[in-house]
């Protein structure tokens, strides 16, 4: 019973941290499950995918009307993302756990760099309405689909949401307003995770007694994190969490190479 409680608390903390950094839960959850609970990485990834679907379901249920995703764009990009996710999930069963851990650490470092860069760059004086403007032209479809496929493959392989690829992809490359890109990405992550979760479930990498308390904790933690985010503006907190991410990445790399 204590283990269930510990998993739920860990999920809660991870959910809060992830929401504060604007990330999906997987990037913190997978290292936490492998480093603290010593779970095999495939089980950790499978658990993370369940958590991602739970969080995505919760966020979409409370999303404000009129400021939602471009569902048409999401579905078109999901053609590539879902295919990538299935491929990534299959690959996870073929690749050695150590290699998986190394790939995960690299992605953790890249994510930390992205979050750090996002925090450092000066915020332009953008009007709120322009974040959700409707009259925009979509461009660079080929590049968009290519990167969406990569995001999906990483999501299926590592149990992450891939939002740190999808949002810049839509915003910077495809010309989608930032608010809509973020909402569209949130809509997409659930579908991408669902494509992977069945592959992991069939392989026996999802244990209900691990996945459920963790997913419940992450779900509640994300809601709490979203609630407290506007109330906390401390730059130091963001830097501390980025530091924690880097530390986790090094720990995973160390274990993969040495242990």
């Amino acid at each position, binding site marked *: 019973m204590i283990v*269930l409680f510990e998993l739920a608390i860990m999920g809660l903390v991870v959910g809060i941290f992830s929401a504060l950094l604007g990330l999906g839960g997987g990037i913190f959850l997978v290292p936490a499950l492998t480093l603290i609970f010593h*779970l095999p990485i495939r089980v950790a990834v499978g658990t993370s995918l369940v958590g991602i679907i739970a969080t995505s379901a919760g966020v979409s249920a409370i999303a404000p009307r009129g400021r939602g995703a471009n569902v048409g764009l999401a579905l078109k990009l999901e053609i590539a993302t*879902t295919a990538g996710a299935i491929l990534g999930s299959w690959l996870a069963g073929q690749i050695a756990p150590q290699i998986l851990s190394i790939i995960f650490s690299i992605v953790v470092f890249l994510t930390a760099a992205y979050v750090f860069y996002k925090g450092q760059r000066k915020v332009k004086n953008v009007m709120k309405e322009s974040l959700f403007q409707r009259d925009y032209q979509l461009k660079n479809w080929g590049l968009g689909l290519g990167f969406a496929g990569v995001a999906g493959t990483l999501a299926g392989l590592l149990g992450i949401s891939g939002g740190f690829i999808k949002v810049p992809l839509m915003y910077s490359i495809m010309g989608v307003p930032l608010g809509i890109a973020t909402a569209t990405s949130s809509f997409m992550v659930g579908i991408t995770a*669902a494509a992977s979760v*069945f592959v992991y479930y069939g392989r026996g990498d999802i244990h209900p007694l691990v996945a459920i308390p963790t997913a419940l904790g992450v779900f509640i933690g994300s809601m709490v994190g979203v609630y407290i985010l506007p109330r906390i503006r401390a730059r130091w907190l963001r830097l501390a969490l980025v530091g924690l991410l880097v530390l986790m990445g090094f720990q995973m790399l160390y274990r993969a190479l040495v242990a």
Partner: protein
Amino acid sequence: MQKISLGVSLLSLGLMIAGITLFLLRGNFVAVPGTSVLPASDFIHPLQYRTTILVMSAGIILLALLPALRVLMALSLYIRSRALINILAALIVLIELILSMRTG
């Protein structure tokens, strides 16, 4: 669409919580990969264990089906509005999701 989505989410959460509660009420220990806790099957009737696991698994599977349900609802909206390209995109994504279920 949002109400249906919320309803299915709550149902899957309810199943998961019910499964965990049933498991705990029986005073069982938990066997988690990587830990040294005693296996539950040593303490409870195998049938009860299977039922509890089935309830929890049903919750997880229902949650995993929710995105497919949302794609299906989007498809029905696009069929009504006759947006052919979006219909095609939704169909392809649905087929991919069904393939992933068969792969698993």
